[in-house]
């Protein structure tokens, strides 16, 4: 736990090591240790900081150096054994030309001088198409530090909100047009209004950070890099709906997230930002951290509430919606963590600019880029950005991480986790937007974009997702429990070349039954990968019926012995 009381003065040179989960996986802990060793030996005062994640997963581990009076330089793909040389060079011979690890420099402020021949981060293709609002602090500030967050305007939002009546807060969120970022895309203000209108005085707010979609890691990045933003958003939600208790729910597997949230919450309690009388307003709120342990269904709001109550996470029928009767039978608002971060940003900025912020042209969405893409990472783009621009300009197009498969062609992109299904190249001009994606039979959902290249077999992938859904099905309702298993069996037959053409029709029919008959969103969306694959890649299915896999991927998988 970094202690703000012992914080060195701001004019110290600072070294930042990106320690998000993907950074740690790539070796950031070693980089941090090497930097600490170097700082210990250096004969000057240096502030070594652990930051969150810049979003550039493809350049991890990331190290940044900020010398007083100079701009802040970002290094990428730094190996622990290079750290000492790199730091020595930067501190003592500040000529950065030709240093291979240099990624770019952050825009200098009026007091600092930029480096020559080093690109600004905003000039890089990865950043130039983005508009960073929620991620503006990510990777820049110390997520363990309350001071860092407040220096950047943090907890200004809740202060502003507490100066307003709850009804005014809800109205402002309504005017902003903010819709839920977790997948449903419902208007946040509707949920809040419904909860606030319940006669039951005991209300709850829950931040949903379960993020079960495979291929989604933007919530994790947000929570690891800027946990206070989510806490602040939850505080505003509680004030707006009259809740006095809050929960932040995340998965036990996100160890870094849990640690940073624990630190952040402890700071808030210590400073009186959470407690009986927040900022002298008389508003009382207690926030607890809760975790789940490896269950996809926990992201569904009624299942999440069941978990908090100690029941197995099986969804309940809606209505009554959780906003009417949720945790322990009381009105409960469940918001995605990204939605809550949007809320906290909205209230920091003056009302005029914020009012258009989340429904209009200024709204942004976090996306997780992964799969067969050259620059995987977490990005934030304005709503309405075409998928093509996200994948090819920001993500660098199809490619592996130096795997030498750059010659591969784009085949499909999986949007919004399994719920969104596949989009082929012909639909790449679809904008990243809730309504536009719904119109082409997909969903923006969690914002996961998994790119698939032409070595992948769509039938194999459809089977992969069906198996995932069958494993994830909680088993409460028959269409989902039995249907997804039958779906896997059918697809197995097709993959193995044992199916007849008539079975494709049965397959479509089965998908319809699961979609129409299931209790919750998981079941209703479960057949989407199959239906979208059937719509856009019918030829792949026909080829399997005829007895061969056009890409050979299915044969390879079978010989590899699927485990």
């Amino acid at each position: 736990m970094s202690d703000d009381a012992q914080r060195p003065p701001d004019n110290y040179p600072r070294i930042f090591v990106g320690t998000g989960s993907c950074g740690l996986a790539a070796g950031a802990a070693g980089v941090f240790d090497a930097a600490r060793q170097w700082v210990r030996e250096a004969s000057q005062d240096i502030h070594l900081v652990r930051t969150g994640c810049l979003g550039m997963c493809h350049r991890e581990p990331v190290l940044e150096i900020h010398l007083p009076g100079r701009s802040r330089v970002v290094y990428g793909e730094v190996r622990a054994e290079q750290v000492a040389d790199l730091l020595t060079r930067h501190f003592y011979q500040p000529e950065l030309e030709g240093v291979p690890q240099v990624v770019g420099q952050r825009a200098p402020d009026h007091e600092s001088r930029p480096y020559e021949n080093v690109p600004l981060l905003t000039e890089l293709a990865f950043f130039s198409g983005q508009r960073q609002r929620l991620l503006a602090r990510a990777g820049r500030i110390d997520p363990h530090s309350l001071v860092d967050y407040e220096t950047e305007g943090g907890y200004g939002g809740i202060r502003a909100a507490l100066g307003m009546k709850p009804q005014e807060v809800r109205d402002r969120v309504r005017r902003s047009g903010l819709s839920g970022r977790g997948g449903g895309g419902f208007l946040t203000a509707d949920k809040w209004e419904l909860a606030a209108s319940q006669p039951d005085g005991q209300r709850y707010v829950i931040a949903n950070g379960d993020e079960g979609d495979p291929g989604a890691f933007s919530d994790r990045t947000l929570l690891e890099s800027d946990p206070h933003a989510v806490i602040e958003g939850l505080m505003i939600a509680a004030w707006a709906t009259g809740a006095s208790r809050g929960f932040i729910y995340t998965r036990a597997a996100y160890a870094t997230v849990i640690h940073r949230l624990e630190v952040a919450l402890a700071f808030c309690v210590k400073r009186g930002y959470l407690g009986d009388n927040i900022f002298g307003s008389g508003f009382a709120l207690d926030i607890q951290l809760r975790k789940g342990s490896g269950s996809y269904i926990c992201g569904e709001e009624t299942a999440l509430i069941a978990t908090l109550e100690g029941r197995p996470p099986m969804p309940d029928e809606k209505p009554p919606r959780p906003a009417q009767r949720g945790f322990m039978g009381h009105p409960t608002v469940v918001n995605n963590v990204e939605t809550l971060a949007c809320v906290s940003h909205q209230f920091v900025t003056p009302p005029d600019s914020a009012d258009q912020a989340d429904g209009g042209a200024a709204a942004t969405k976090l996306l997780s880029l992964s799969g067969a893409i050259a620059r995987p990472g977490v990005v934030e783009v304005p709503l309405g950005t075409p998928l093509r621009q996200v994948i090819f300009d920001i993500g660098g197009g199809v490619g592996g991480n130096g795997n030498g498969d750059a010659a591969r062609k784009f085949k499909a992109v999986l949007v919004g986790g399994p719920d969104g299904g596949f989009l082929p190249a012909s639909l790449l001009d679809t904008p990243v937007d809730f309504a536009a994606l719904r119109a082409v039979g997909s969903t923006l959902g969690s914002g996961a974009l998994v790119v698939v290249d032409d070595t992948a077999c769509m039938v194999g992938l459809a089977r992969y997702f069906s198996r995932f859904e069958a494993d994830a099905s909680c088993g409460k309702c028959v269409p989902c429990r039995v249907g997804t298993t039958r779906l896997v069996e059918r697809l197995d037959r097709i993959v193995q070349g044992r199916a007849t053409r008539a079975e494709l029709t049965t397959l479509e029919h089965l998908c319809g039954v699961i979609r129409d008959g299931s209790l919750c969103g998981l079941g209703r969306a479960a057949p989407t990968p199959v239906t979208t694959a059937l719509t856009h890649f019918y030829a792949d299915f026909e080829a399997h019926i005829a007895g061969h896999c056009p890409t050979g991927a299915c044969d390879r998988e079978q010989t590899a012995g699927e485990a």
Partner: protein
Amino acid sequence: MSGKPSASPRTYRATLAPIPLPVQAVEPDPKRQGRLKKVIERHLLATPSPKGRTPEAVDMMGLLVAVHALYGCLTRPMVEFLCRATELYTGQVYAAASFYADIYLDPKGRHYVKVCTGTACHVKGAPRLAGTCARALGVKATGDTDADGEFTFFTTACVGACSLAPVLMLDSDIYGNPELAAVPDLIASHRQRGVGEKGQP
């Protein structure tokens, strides 16, 4: 109530009495008995709210995850013990414990070999990597332990290192896109290590 299951578990203590339990049955080591009790107490009544402790402040998932982290699994005697500690029905605790993929109900090997099968890893060759690992260990399916009880093999959901896909985890060490031919040696090199931090379940 339109068929909504009763939300509140049977009873909770408002204040914490000594846990009336056969701790010895699940934890013979007296030193570790204290640790186990502490974990249970911490979750029986979680973070106190400003208005004092409330009944729903019992954190069942937190309890299960924490006890699981201590022992690597929740055996039947342990589940029954936790029921007595929390004053819940066996069914209530077992229903929660058995639901989650990352909570194991029987003991596993000393080391974990996990292959991520999230979407990003899948499209970048996780099935091949999983097959290689399974063959190296001589096991068939996820959750299987090798013949000498050293390694347990898992395919697991996203470990959060999508940019390194496909990802192999040996205990808490992450290997991004390992060379398939080198995997058996990599696993063997972990055999010599002590029981490492297995990470959160």
